[in-house]
């Protein structure tokens, strides 16, 4: 394992970034995502209006991978349509499985920094927590609930 591919500057800095770490005013969706075995725990909040993600934020704690992944995800999907967000979520899961084309990877922008996780199976569940939570939140019409990625392990 090459640590420099895993813990890139984008990941270490975003893992500590406060920018997206806040509750969302007038949130229409709020969902907690947990990895029971390692204790990663994030609550994702969204304000969706007219099919568009107007604002998004998260609060929680966990490893650098889970926290950077949540923050980078919010940077990517904020301001986009729900439909587009679903497309990006699918691309992200493709990337984590190591099955993505260079063109598709471009669409993920800075999130591509998490590409190295594909080679570290033990940390995949950290990387997908926020994304599963987003997917469930968008599908669940804003019910406040809990989602877990434990089966991913």
């Amino acid at each position, binding site marked *: *394992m090459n*640590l420099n591919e895993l*813990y890139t*500057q984008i990941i270490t800095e975003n893992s500590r970034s406060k920018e997206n770490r806040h509750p969302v005013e007038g949130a229409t969706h709020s969902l907690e995502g947990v990895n029971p075995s*390692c*204790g990663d*725990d994030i609550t994702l909040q969204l304000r969706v209006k007219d099919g568009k993600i107007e604002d998004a934020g998260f609060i929680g704690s966990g*490893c650098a*991978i889970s926290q950077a992944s949540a923050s980078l995800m919010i940077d990517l999907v904020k301001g986009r349509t729900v439909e587009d967000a679903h497309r990006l979520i699918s691309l992200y899961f493709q990337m984590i499985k190591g099955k993505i084309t260079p063109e598709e990877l471009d669409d993920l922008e800075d999130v591509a920094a998490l590409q190295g996780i594909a080679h570290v199976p*033990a940390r995949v569940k950290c990387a997908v927590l926020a994304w599963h939570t987003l997917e469930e939140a968008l599908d669940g019409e804003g019910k406040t609930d809990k989602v877990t990625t434990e089966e991913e392990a």
Partner: protein
Amino acid sequence: MNWTADFPILAADENGNRLVYLDSAATTQHPMQVLNAVVDYYTKENANPHRGVYELAMRATDAHEGARHTVAQFFNAEDDEIVFTQNTTESLNLVAYSYGMNFLHEGDEIVISVAEHHSNMVPWQRVAKATGAKLVYMYPGENGRLTTEELDKKITPKTKVVAVAMVSNVLGLRAPVEEIVKRAHAVGAVVVLDCAQSAPHTPVDVKKLDVDFAACSAHKLYAPMGVGALYARAGLLEKMPPFMSGGDMIGAVHESGATWADGPRKFEAGTRNVGGEVGFAAAIDYMKGIGWEAMETHEHALLDRMLAGMRAMPWLTVYGEPVAEGRYGVVSFNVNDVHPHDVATILDAGGVAVRAGHHCAQPLMEFLGIGSCCRASVAIYNTPEDVDALLENLENVRKVMGL
């Protein structure tokens, strides 16, 4: 002395790299002596014990009962005070279900420490819920050790069971077992000792400690997974109803009901893991060959070296008093501002295997005010070089994280 060569999984690869395995508190590796004993059993003695009348079945019965004798001696107990189980978890569940569920009532109290492994906590939570007994938690002091004041406060005439780990799987510190037993017996309570983390490192003499139950797992002391033991003081097993029921645990079965086998067999339903038991006995023989004094001296020196290195790292926090005295096997820690899973991944990249997580002790994590931590644990095959590899790689952690 260096025992590493006995453990094939720890041999260096063609590039001279060797796994620095510091997760023995989760499970130990196995010496050839144990692996050979298991192969010998399956090549020469395997049949279903206590069933066949043919010679091979007799040999399997001898292997099963011979292993029980070795385990009994290990605990300084009698053969009929030892029940074979799958592991410590099953041993503790057996006590909780067969003793706790039947002999505890509303108004009684069960006393455990907040530092217990979930396996010595969740079964008691269930017993408390089912019987109406109250579960009372003891809390360690500043240095991670239980104080006599806390024992005096929590062990009262209402106490019927005190269940504690002899050595905490997170803090690594030995509980004041003698002080606990004195107070528990004075009020007529039984003492259940979880020896999962102590039996691999220091003698568990149940007569000298005067405990009523003791549980351990073979896989944490150089033997295969899937076998463990429960010691129960003579007389206790007789009054307890069976835990699981079925084959081989019966006296006689009729349409109208059944009677139970005598002694430990009442608690050994179904075909046993005899190969594992043989490995368990071989591991005890292996440890006996080394001797407690040599083992304790070797492991104490490793912990002393590790803690000295860690005390010099101002950005690292050790849980429990950071000294090797009264500590067995385990050092838990966090690198400040870095999540334990990231620490473990970075150490792994340097060839060092440590555990990161809540260590099946979530209430202790809450008590310590942390979500999780890293744990480095040592066994007889570790060397000072292993400890140095851990310390060197720790120096790298904050740099990798850009701190």
